[in-house]
C-alpha cells in the first residue's frame, strides 16, 4: 500500500512537469529502505506508463513542441547509455551522495524560482489593485 501511495504522490508531481523522481527516489530509499540503484531503476520504469498517460493528455491540449524534438532525443541517447552504465557499476554509497547533491541543486533552483514568482506576483498584484480595485487575485496564473 505504501508503494502505491508513494507512486501516486510522485505521479501527481511529475504529471505537473516537476520531477517526480526527485520525490520518489528519496521516498523509496529513506522510508522503504530500497537500495539506490534499485530505487533509480524503479523510478525509470514507473515513469514510463505515467509519462505515456501524461503525454497523451498534453498532446490533446496541444502542448507538445515538435521543433528540436528529434535532435534532443537523438543526442540524448549516448548520454542515456553512458549515464546508466556508470550508475549500475558504481558503488551505491557514492551514487547516493551524488544523487543527494543533484537533489540539493534542484531544491535551490525551485526555491529561487518560487521566490521570484512570489516577488513578481506581489508587484503585479499591487499594481492591478491600484488601477482597478475590484480586480483581485488571479493576476498571474503561470
Amino acid at each position, binding site marked *: 500500500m505504501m508503494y502505491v501511495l508513494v507512486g501516486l504522490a510522485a505521479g501527481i508531481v511529475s504529471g505537473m512537469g516537476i520531477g517526480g523522481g526527485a520525490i520518489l527516489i528519496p521516498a523509496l530509499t529513506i522510508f522503504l529502505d530500497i537500495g539506490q540503484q534499485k530505487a533509480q531503476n524503479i523510478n525509470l520504469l514507473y515513469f*514510463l506508463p505515467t509519462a505515456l498517460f501524461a503525454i497523451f493528455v498534453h498532446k490533446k491540449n496541444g502542448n507538445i513542441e515538435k521543433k528540436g524534438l528529434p535532435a534532443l532525443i537523438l543526442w540524448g541517447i549516448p548520454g542515456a547509455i553512458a549515464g546508466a552504465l556508470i550508475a549500475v557499476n558504481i558503488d551505491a554509497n557514492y551514487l547516493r551522495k551524488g544523487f543527494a547533491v543533484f537533489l540539493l541543486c534542484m531544491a535551490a533552483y525551485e526555491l529561487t524560482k518560487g521566490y521570484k514568482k512570489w516577488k513578481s506576483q506581489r508587484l503585479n498584484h499591487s499594481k492591478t489593485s491600484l488601477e482597478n480595485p475590484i480586480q483581485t487575485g488571479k493576476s498571474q496564473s503561470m
Partner: protein
Amino acid sequence: MKNLKIRAIGLVVGFANGLFGAGGGSLLVPAMQKFMGLETKKSHATTLAVILPLSVISAGIYIWGVELDWKIVMLVSAGGICGGVIGAKLLNKLAGWWLNILFGLFLAAGAIRMLFS
C-alpha cells in the same frame, strides 16, 4: 549554433537522467525555456516526450545490471498512472510560487537526509 546547443542539451540531459535515474526533465524544462524560447506549459509537456525514450534506454541497462522486484514496480506504477493524469490536469489549472517553495523544501529535506545517513 542553435543546433549545437540543442545537441549538447540532449547529451547532458540524457546523461544525468541515466546516471541518477531521474532529473533529466528538471534540467530540460529550464533549458528549453532559456535556449529554445519555449513557454512554461509547452516546455513541461515536450520534456516528457524527450525523457520517455531516453528513460526506456537507461532502464534497459539498469534491468540488465541490477536485480529488481517487479511487484514493487507494478505497485508504484499503479499509483503513478493515476497521479500522472491528475497532475497533468492540475497543471492547466494551478501553478504558483507556493508550489515551487513547497517542492524545494521537500527536496532539500530529502537531500540532507541522504547526505548524512
